[in-house]
């Protein structure tokens, strides 16, 4: 770990893996008291692989060992990057996305990815529930957020199975601040959207389950609708996991966070 206490000026992440805000125009909390935090889920590549394969059926293209090797390579690459190594001190979960070329990312997200989250969550927690409060169709609703680099991820999915790591590290950022922050991060950092965040939850359903405190709400900021003031997000509710839409109005909240993904 690079920092002890206060982050050094050349690091993009603090000692807890939070992305340090750097002269951003939109609202963001410069510091965090770390009240809304995520407990690192256990990373068992074998288990994560099988949960994801149940939904995406990629076993002919990717083995468990390949998944682990590619995912670990991402962490190694980051640990060797002086300015960004601290991101690995925070919460991180690996994920896999299938090879796919979607005409409509909103429709695909709703029919495949949210259903996948529900399946994985309820399989792990039969007495809890995954509740999708967005009852309206998402068909034609989403595009990739300008400046998010989500197109890199979409293009990678068109070429083959994607392996990545999800870092919920843009803690206490407004959605516009999260988007703006991406521009100053290395090209390999992508603002998490719908597919990657869902895959992180499918692989690690316990990501937002905390019994001793409250985890943050996670925006899928890499996906946008026509309304710049609204966003879609995953959120814990007691022992349950929820997906919902709400107006963020460009504001910041201690409770709100976005994620970064790095592909490998």
């Amino acid at each position, binding site marked *: 770990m690079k920092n002890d206490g206060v982050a050094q000026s050349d690091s993009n992440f603090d000692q807890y893996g939070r992305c340090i805000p750097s002269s951003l125009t939109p609202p963001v909390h410069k510091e965090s*008291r770390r009240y809304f935090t995520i407990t690192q889920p256990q990373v068992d590549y074998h288990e994560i692989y099988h949960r994801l394969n149940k939904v995406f059926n990629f076993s002919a293209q990717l083995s468990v060992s390949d998944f682990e090797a590619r995912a670990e390579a991402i962490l190694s690459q980051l640990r060797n990057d002086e300015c960004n190594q601290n991101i690995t001190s925070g919460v991180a979960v690996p994920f896999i996305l299938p090879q796919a070329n979607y005409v409509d990312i909103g429709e695909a997200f709703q029919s495949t990815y949210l259903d996948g989250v529900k399946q994985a969550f309820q399989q792990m927690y039969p007495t809890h529930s995954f509740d999708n409060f967005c009852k309206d169709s998402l068909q034609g609703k989403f595009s990739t957020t300008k400046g998010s680099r989500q197109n890199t991820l979409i293009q990678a999915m068109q070429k083959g199975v994607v392996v990545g790591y999800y870092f919920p590290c843009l803690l206490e950022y407004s959605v516009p601040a999260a988007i703006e922050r991406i521009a100053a991060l290395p090209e390999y950092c992508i603002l998490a959207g719908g597919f990657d965040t869902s895959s992180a939850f499918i692989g690690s359903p316990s990501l937002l389950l905390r019994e001793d*405190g409250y985890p943050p709400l996670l925006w899928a900021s890499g996906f946008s609708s026509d309304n710049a003031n609204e966003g879609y997000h995953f959120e814990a509710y007691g022992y349950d996991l929820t997906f919902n839409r709400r107006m963020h*109005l460009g504001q910041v909240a201690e409770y709100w966070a976005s994620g970064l993904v790095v592909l490998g």
Partner: protein
Amino acid sequence: MLNQQSELNDSLLTPGELAKREGLRARKPYVANKLAKISAMEERGEISPIIRLEKSYLCNFQCTHCSAEYYMDRHLDKVLHVTDDRKKIDLEKIKDISQQADALGLARFVITGGEPLVMRDLDEVVAAIDPEKHYVIVDTNGWFLDLEKAKHLKSIGVEKIQLSLDSLVEEEHDNFRNKPGSYKKVMKAIDATIDAGLNLLLSTVLIKGQPKTQAFLDLCKFSTDKGVGLYVSYAKPTGSCTDHPEFVIDKEDADILRSLEKEYMVFTHMTPSYGSFKGCITVKGIITVTSTGEITPCPYIDFSIGNLYENSLKEILDRGMGNPWLGPHRPDCLIGEDPKFIKIHTEKTAGAKHLPLPWGQGFTDDDSLMD
């Protein structure tokens, strides 16, 4: 307290709720129209808090967990040996508050206290609020609520009664309320409210460990079987409960309660309802007007965000929403669960003779989550 998120989208209502909505539309179209606009207001980032009005703190009970005890004359007289010479709100001021609220699209008033049914001017207070412009709720311990009184309240424009019920075990309820006979009275009040055609909400205070008890489940079942919502308020470390920190719930209690919401008609102020997902409702969903015209962001926070004799309601609401503790969305109860805020609140209110602390002494322009 009442179902904070009620009376919103028609499409999200049950047939029974829709029938009540239609009834309100027929009787009070202006109020119904305002209520129907709340969702659209929230989409625009506007707020429509319920206004709790504490004109008087006179009460015939002395409950173990009362959040208003430190505001009461009996506490000031007998414990602190002080008198309160601050300017008090009167009927004219209530009319003014009602008009300001109406202009902002706010639609709901709760008359609380104290015990509203011991107020000699209750009818005048209801009239000053103007039940043709606002949905009026009375929050009572039920002691004086017989059928005749319930019918009278209905006749003067009150729409809903909120009754306090802490246990289905008579002795437990009476002990918690420090009032023998109160259980029997509240049970009669439930029937009187329903028979008078008033809407009813039961409210109870939740203390640590209680959600795991059979007694609490029985209370949830009783309420659900009656077809009446049970509003659960966490015990907060304020008021009389300052002396009972052991009452304050933990995350497990809150999570168990969230699970019970699926099975029973039970909810807290954070419970999503009818498409509204506010989380903690400070300012966004509720404010309290104290007897001295101070506005607090929640019934249990003894810090004012402004005084209606000094600032307009809009200015005060804007100030509240701009405060880092109060405005932003959060899932937990600020005064019931956030240890840092609880500590700040406890330290600042310790030794205070008059509550709430005015703006600048509790909440300030310089507030920060990081201090």
